[in-house]
């Protein structure tokens, strides 16, 4: 008896690969929306904007304090109920069954990762030297302008390593979307496995696909990080210091 049916594994690869576009769609949409949500809520909290500040805190606490799987199931079963209620109450005609399940996932993952990103942005913004903001004020810049041009670019640089890790987590966590009948990589694996009862093989192939995707993204993120740190001193490219300051070096 063989442990693994290798030919079967090779045969199902294309079918599992078909899940990748959905996986990337969820990842990218949620990352972008999550960043916007995270940035806004981080600023609400830092500047203590009345009402929005408290709402943001509750939102972040809830999202970070409940499992993503539970959030997905709540969205999957809850949104249709709410839409039906809205239809009933206001006589609107939202077509519930016409909304693809993947839209629900955009919604759910964006909210969830928005909360994690919010905490990241908040600490990144607070870690920017207060002297930078003072310098902006001293030349007469307004707060929004200072944030946009000086503080946020520096904060983002601080946040990029953490954001990269979040991105990788997000890629992997999209596998949970299969519970909401979304056919991403994991969903495809489950379908294939169910047909043949070769669960072990199908899930190993799925694991390898996730692994390769994550290695690929890690490479990209590493480059991005390096680029974002170009204005810091201990970077290889920054060794073009004024030669006059190093008289020993013959130029």
């Amino acid at each position: 008896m063989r442990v693994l049916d290798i030919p079967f594994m090779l045969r199902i690869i294309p079918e599992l690969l078909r899940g990748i576009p959905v996986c990337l769609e969820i990842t990218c949409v949620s990352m972008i929306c999550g960043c916007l949500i995270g940035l806004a809520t981080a600023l609400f909290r830092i500047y203590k904007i009345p009402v929005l500040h408290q709402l943001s805190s509750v939102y972040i606490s809830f999202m970070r304090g409940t499992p993503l799987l539970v959030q997905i199931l709540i969205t999957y079963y809850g949104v249709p109920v709410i839409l039906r209620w809205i239809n009933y109450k206001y006589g609107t005609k939202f077509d519930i069954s016409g909304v693809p399940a993947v839209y629900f996932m955009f919604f759910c993952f964006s909210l969830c990762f928005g909360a994690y990103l919010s905490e990241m942005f908040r600490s990144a913004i607070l870690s920017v030297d207060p002297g930078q903001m003072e310098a902006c004020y001293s030349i007469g810049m307004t707060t929004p302008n200072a944030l946009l041009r000086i503080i946020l670019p520096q904060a983002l640089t601080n946040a990029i390593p953490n954001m990269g890790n979040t991105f990788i987590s997000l890629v992997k966590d999209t596998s949970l979307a299969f519970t909401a009948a979304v056919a991403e990589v994991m969903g495809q694996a489950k379908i294939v496995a169910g047909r043949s009862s070769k669960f072990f093989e199908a899930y190993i192939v799925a694991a390898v696909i996730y692994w390769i995707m994550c290695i690929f993204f890690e490479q990209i993120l590493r480059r991005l990080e390096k680029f974002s740190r170009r204005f810091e001193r201990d970077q290889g490219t920054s060794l073009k210091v004024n030669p006059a300051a190093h008289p020993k070096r013959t130029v």
Partner: protein
Amino acid sequence: MCEAQIICRLENIHKAFGQNQVLKGVDAEVRKGEALAILGPSGSGKTTLLRCINFLERADEGTIGIGGLKVDCKQVSKRNILNIRRKTAMVFQNFNLFKNKTIVENVMEGLVQVKKIPKNTAYAESIKLLTQVGLEEHVNYYPSQLSGGQQQRVGIARALILNPDVILLDEPTSALDPELVGEVLQTIKNLTHTGITMIIVTHEIHFAREVADQIIFMDEGIVVETGSPKDVIDNSQNPRTRQFLSRFTETLNKAAS
């Protein structure tokens, strides 16, 4: 001196941090084109006073008048805080250059974002000014790639380019290695001939005597003495001033012997 020439007037400035009353009613006047040096022991409130002038700190009481705009610190609008800030510019002890911008971008920033001058004009002006402070070869470097003295000259250029009514300098050389102090002091000295108005907090007594038109000696949140460098540094009759200055003369005598 006639009234019209006074470009900056502080009246009765009070500032407390919690229970700690740091400024206890400071008055000062600076005439256009004049360099005012503020001396005083550590903790006497010099930095706080300077920060109150451009509202990095909000004074509890008092009025600040700069270039025709007079505000009461108790009830100043956001708009007027911005207006006052746009009439002043600050040079910081630890430079505070924008880390994510190159040298020329640091200098341009105020022109483009605040004065709304077109980018290419702003660029040309910035390069011109950076050349004047001897940094034409470093315009595309990031601040972290420069020495402290070079960074501080950028800080001065960044303030100067806005052509403010008053430029505020808080111990511009005290974060520098001794061999870099000279180049920055020279840069500031050159400014005194351009007609720009300066308020400078410094521990460089010799420098103050040389470049300042007026000296204020502060201690424990009040102005102890005001006058020309001659009056305050060389011939002060005030015991507190003399005690403060004696420390410097002592070290100077030691160095000489």
